[in-house]
């Protein structure tokens, strides 16, 4: 079954093409990582799926064209973590996460909503921050809160733009474990963008490599992550080691092709 299908997607900012003819299919319960250099169009792609910007082409959610689905329903289906979050709101962590459930909030907050918020805060181990102010947190703590806000909506499609930004190694691994667990358990379609190729290889079922607004390659990590790809997409000479026990490719960068120093 295909949960999300993107067909001939095109998007331009001020007539400068940013996405050129993208075709992707994603199944439920799987994690797809979109990787690629800066300005490749990764965030733009996620914004299209989240319905924040309107591209040309088709985005189909469970076979239905996104434009024909009611806005409220899209919001319930799709949850989106932005690459950067504004730190200026004077709100407690609990309130920020609660806002993730905007669609069901009324003046008096339901116990259900409180329970879900508290549950996710505990799951992410940030329940001790609940009454702290969001704008007084460290970058990593803020990132955890933003992730909580994205997860608290219990979506069918989860879009995470660089979810591990600002996170230390342990938190990165924990977040990916949690995302995997949730994806499988609740049958969520997850699309993440990130820059660490090795992390992507370890955590994602599928990789989509985006370069200059086009899909350079897509598929299983072991078929996509090649030294050839790293050279032509990133301009970096690299060695690829295949893990002996798990078969996961690991990229060891050597130098930039622009670099004058030789390895």
């Amino acid at each position, binding site marked *: 079954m295909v949960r999300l299908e993107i067909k001939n997607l095109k998007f331009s900012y001020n007539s400068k093409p940013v996405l050129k003819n993208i075709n992707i299919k994603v199944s439920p319960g799987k994690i797809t990582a979109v990787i690629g250099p800066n300005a490749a169009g990764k965030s733009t792609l996620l914004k299209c799926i989240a319905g924040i910007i309107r591209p040309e082409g088709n985005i189909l959610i469970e076979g239905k064209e996104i434009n024909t689905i009611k806005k409220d329903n899209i919001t319930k289906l799709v949850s989106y973590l932005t690459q950067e979050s504004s730190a200026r709101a004077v709100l407690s962590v609990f309130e920020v996460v609660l806002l993730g459930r905007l669609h069901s*909030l009324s003046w008096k907050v339901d116990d259900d909503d409180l329970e879900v918020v508290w549950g996710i805060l505990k799951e992410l181990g940030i329940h001790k921050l609940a009454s702290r*102010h969001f704008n007084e947190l460290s970058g990593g703590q803020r990132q955890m809160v933003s992730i909580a806000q994205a997860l608290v909506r219990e979506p069918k499609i989860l879009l995470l733009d660089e979810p591990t930004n600002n996170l230390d190694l342990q938190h990165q691994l924990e977040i990916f474990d949690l995302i995997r667990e949730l994806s499988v358990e609740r049958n969520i379609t997850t699309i993440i963008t990130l820059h660490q190729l090795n992390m992507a290889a370890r955590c994602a079922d599928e990789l989509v490599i985006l370069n200059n607004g086009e899909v350079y390659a897509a598929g299983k990590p072991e078929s996509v992550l090649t030294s050839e790809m790293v050279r032509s997409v990133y301009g970096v000479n690299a060695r690829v080691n295949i893990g002996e026990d798990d078969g996961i490719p690991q990229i060891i960068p050597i130098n930039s092709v622009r670099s004058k120093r030789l390895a």
Partner: protein
Amino acid sequence: MATKIDIQAKEIYCEITGRKYILLVLLAVACVFTLIIDILVGPAWLSIREVFSAIFMANSSDPTTHVIVWTIRLPIALMAIVVGATLGIAGAEMQTILDNPLASPYTLGVSAGAGFGAALALVLGVGIVPYAGEYLVSINAFFFSLLTCLLIYFIGKARRVTAETMILAGIALLFLFHSLLALLQYIATEEALQAIVFWLFGNLMKTTWPKLGIVAAVLIIVVPLLAKDAWKLTALRLGDEKAKSLGIDVEKLRLKAFILISLLTAAAVCFVGTIGFIGLVGPHIARMLVGEDQRFFLPMSALGGALLLSAASIGSKVIIPGAVFPIGIVTSLIGVPFFFSLILTKRRGYW
């Protein structure tokens, strides 16, 4: 297990909101307190007993006291509360939708627009509505503040309705109306000039019950409409993109809130003139005390504004015994030290 989480969740939530409820009540009590003092204080000081009997026991009270309380003190004291609340809310929502701590009816030129409208009426006798009589100046001020808001919006819209374009438009209009106003003052007669200056100072003294009723009516109509969007407005503070991803039509929300704010501002300034500080500081006080959950931020901004203006109203009567100072001057004199003391004693992180 599930029920245990449930209980903890409620506990935390009540801990967060409980403190805010207490602060709301405290500030409301403070407002009642200043309101009462405001009624007592004046060229003739009244006792609580006199005021009480004038208000609640019409027959048995002294007729002079009765007149003073009912026709002068009570409407003015209530006007201070209502206008303060109106300006507080207008400022709070402006700061929210424009994502800028410096936004307020004053800084975005709305008060200047109103001042220019009033001056037009005072100098040239030109009114938007003919035969307006006593209300000529107020109606002019009302329409010109609405006009300013509309201009801000449409200039902003000419590009996209972003916070930055609207703020820039507002500041540009502030300068425009200031120079137009200066022009009018330049050509005005001595008498008209004095009237303009007096209007610009801001003044509660001309309050009558009908005027109070109009401002209060606008407040009562607009507040529920804003309150209905409380959560959406709160979400807007997370940034446009986040808000959009939560399903909010950001531009529509901004337009709707802006129209409501315009009405509030126009209603508040048209009868009392330029009172600058309230719309800026009321929301800041609220933000420091209860944060930006609009369910608390909105009423708290109203109470903050009301408290400040009510205190200023008292101040305007006691600075020089026997005389009444223009309240627009006193608001800043009282408000600034108060505001500084808040800033200096509070933690960082509020803008």
